[in-house]
C-alpha cells in the first residue's frame, strides 16, 4: 500500500486577545491508501483544527498555518492557490462533519446540494448528476431516493442527514474521507448504522478515512491506526491493538482507565485524570501533560519529549516511554 497523505510538521496557530494559541503544534503522520486512521483527543486537543488544515478550511485571520507540509497524492496542498485547493476539497478528499443539522444548507434541496458538487468537480451534465445522486442515496441506504432528492434537510432525521453527508463526501469518488466526529450528535443505534456504513464503504470502495473522535469504543472497532492528541501535539501513535493493550504514554493510560466499560465488572471505581487540560496560549518548553501526570520527572519540565519509537513501530512522546509498562503494572 502506498502513502496517500503525509502530514509533516504541521503548525496552526490562532491569534486571540489573550495571545497566540498553538492549536496544532507540529504534528506528523501518514495515511496509507485504503487505511482508516483515528485521531483521538479531548476538546481543544487540536484534532479538528489539524483536519481542517488539510482541507484549507482554517479561517484566516485569526487562524494561520505557519509551518509544515501536507502532501496528498504527490502534491503539497499548502502550496496550492484557492482554486487549486477547491479542486481537491470535495473532489479527491471528501468530508463529513459532526453536525448534520448545520452542515447542510437548509434552503436548498438535497438533490441540489448533491448534484452541485458533481457538476463542479466532475463536469457532468445535470441529467447524469441526477442519476448518480439517486445511485448514491441508494448506496448509503436511503429509501425512495427520487423523492428524497426533492426534499429539504429539515424533512430528514439526524441519521438520514448524516447519510446524505456521506453520500456528498462520496459523490466525486474520493480517495480520502475526513470525518470529524461523524456520530457524536447521533443516538447509539444510529451511530452503529452510520459506522457500519462507513466501514462497508471503506472495504468495497477502498476509500481511506481519517476519523476524528473522542469515543474510544468507536476507535477500537473501526480504526487500523490511532493517533492520540493532547494540547496540539500527537503524544502517541500506533496500531489499535498496541494503543489499547500496551499504551506507552501516560495520557493514553489515563484515558483508557477513566472510561466506564461494558465488558468489566460493575461498581469498580473509575480512575480519572486529575486536573484540567492546559491553556494553549500559555505552554512552556516542557511536556504539556506533566501537571496531570503521576509519573513526572525533572526532565519533563525542561524539554518536550520527542515522538519516538518505543518498539514495534509504536511511537510515544514520553521521557519514560521504555519504563511505562513497569510503571503501569506497579500502579
Amino acid at each position, binding site marked *: 500500500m502506498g502513502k496517500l497523505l503525509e502530514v509533516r510538521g504541521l503548525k496552526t496557530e490562532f491569534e486571540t486577545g489573550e495571545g497566540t494559541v498553538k492549536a496544532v503544534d507540529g504534528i506528523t503522520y501518514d495515511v496509507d491508501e485504503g487505511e482508516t486512521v483515528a485521531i483521538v483527543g479531548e476538546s481543544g486537543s487540536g484534532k479538528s483544527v489539524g483536519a481542517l488544515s488539510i482541507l484549507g478550511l482554517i479561517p484566516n485571520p485569526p487562524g494561520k498555518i505557519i509551518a509544515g507540509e501536507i502532501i496528498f497524492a504527490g502534491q503539497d496542498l499548502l502550496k496550492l492557490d484557492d482554486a487549486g485547493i477547491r479542486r481537491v476539497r470535495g473532489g479527491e478528499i471528501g468530508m463529513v462533519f459532526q453536525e448534520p443539522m448545520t452542515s447542510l444548507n437548509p434552503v436548498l434541496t438535497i438533490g441540489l446540494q448533491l448534484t452541485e458538487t458533481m457538476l463542479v468537480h466532475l463536469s457532468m451534465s445535470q441529467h447524469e448528476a441526477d442519476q448518480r445522486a439517486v445511485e448514491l442515496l441508494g448506496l448509503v441506504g436511503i429509501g425512495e431516493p427520487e423523492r428524497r432528492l426533492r426534499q429539504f434537510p429539515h424533512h430528514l432525521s439526524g441519521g438520514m442527514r448524516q447519510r446524505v453527508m456521506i453520500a456528498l463526501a462520496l459523490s466525486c469518488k474520493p480517495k480520502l474521507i475526513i470525518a470529524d466526529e461523524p456520530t457524536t450528535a447521533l443516538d447509539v443505534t444510529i451511530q452503529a448504522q452510520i459506522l457500519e456504513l462507513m466501514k462497508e464503504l471503506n472495504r468495497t470502495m477502498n476509500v481511506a478515512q481519517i476519523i476524528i473522535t473522542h*469515543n474510544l469504543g468507536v476507535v477500537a472497532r473501526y480504526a487500523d491506526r490511532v493517533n492520540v492528541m493532547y494540547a496540539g501535539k500527537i503524544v502517541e501513535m500506533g496500531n489499535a*491493538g498496541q494503543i*489499547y*493493550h500496551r499504551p506507552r504514554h501516560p495520557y493514553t493510560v489515563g484515558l483508557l482507565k477513566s*472510561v466506564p466499560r*461494558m465488558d468489566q465488572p*460493575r461498581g469498580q471505581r473509575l480512575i480519572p*485524570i486529575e486536573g484540567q487540560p492546559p491553556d494553549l496560549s500559555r505552554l512552556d518548553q516542557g511536556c504539556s501533560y506533566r501537571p496531570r501526570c503521576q509519573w513526572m520527572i525533572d526532565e519533563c519540565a525542561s524539554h518536550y519529549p520527542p515522538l519516538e519509537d518505543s518498539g514495534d513501530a509504536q511511537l510515544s512522546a514520553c521521557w519514560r516511554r521504555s519504563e511505562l509498562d513497569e510503571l503501569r503494572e506497579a500502579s
Partner: protein
Amino acid sequence: MSATAEVLQVEPQFKEVAVGETLLQVRNLKMHFPVTEGIMFQRTIAHVKAVDGVSFDIQRGETLGLVGESGCGKTTTGRCILQLEKATAGNIIYRGVDLTTLHDKQLMPVRTHIQVIFQDPYSSLNPRMKVGDIIGEPMMVHRIQSDRSACHKRVTELLNVCGLSAKFADRYPHEMSGGQRQRVGIARALALNPDIIVCDEAVSALDVSIQAQVINLLEDLRDEFHLTYLFIAHDLSVVRHLCNRVAVMYLGKIMELAGGDELFDNPQHPYTKALLSAVPVPDPSIEQQRQHQVLHGEVPSPMYPPSGCVFHPRCTYAVDGCRRDIPPLREIVKDHHVACSEV
C-alpha cells in the same frame, strides 16, 4: 380568608421514609403536548405523546437509571417529577403526597426535596451572576440561611464538597471550564439538602477525563449525604457504572426495568438487546470479533406512534400480535420487568 383558600395554604405533610423504602412512586404518568395549527383560532390537530403511561418506584438511597434514545421521553419524565411540567395524567407520589394535586405555593417545600442537575453546564448557569450567588440563591429564596454571612459560609462549604476552592465564589461562569461549571451545578443542587436529585444527562457534555471526575464526585456525594438519584442518560456504559436499577424507555414507554446486573447481563427485551449491542467496547480485540446486531430504521414520530407494541416496526422478532396488542410491563422473574409478549 375563605375556607378553600385556607385549605390551599396547608403545607403538604411528608411521611418519614427509611433507606430502602419507596421514596417516590410514578404511576401511569402521561405527558401529551398538543400540536396546534392556525394563528388566531388555534386548534389542536394532534398530540406528541412524549411520555405515555410510565410507572416505576424509586427507593431511598438508590440510583435509578433512565436510558433511551433522543425523543424517548426520559427528560420529560424527569421534568414531570420536578413539577416543571404539569403531567397530562397520572400520579407522582413523593413520601405519601401526590405532587400532581399540589398548587404552586404548596410546591415550594417540595422544591427543597427534589433538585436537578442539568446537562449543559454552559446554559444552565446565569452568566451575569457570580458563582457564589448562583449557589446561594436557592437558600435565600427558601429562607434556609437567615443572613448573608451564614449563606456565604454554606456556599464555601458546598464548593469544597464539590472539589472547588472557596475563591471560585467570586468568579463568573465564563471564567471556568466545563467540568468546573458542572461542579457548580452540583453544588447548587445540594444547597437545599435535597432527598432526590434528578441528573438529566449530567455528565454527557463533559470530556472523557473530566467525566470520570464528575462521576466519582456524584458517587461520593451519594454515599456522604445518602442521596437518591434519578440518573437520566443515553450513555449506557455510564448508566451501567452508576445505577442500581435501570429502566429502558422507547417512544414514551418503559420497555424493560431491572436491576443493573440483571439488565446488562441478561437483557430480555429485543430493544434493550439491540441497544446494548450497539455500544462499542474500548478494546479492539473484543470489538472487532463481536457481532453487532444493527437495528434498522429509525424511531417513529411520537405524534403517530405505531399500533400495538411501539417497537414492532424495528423488531426482528415481531409477530402479528405485536401489531395489535400493547404488551404490558410484566414481571418475568423477581424485580425484572419486560414489556414484550414474546419473552
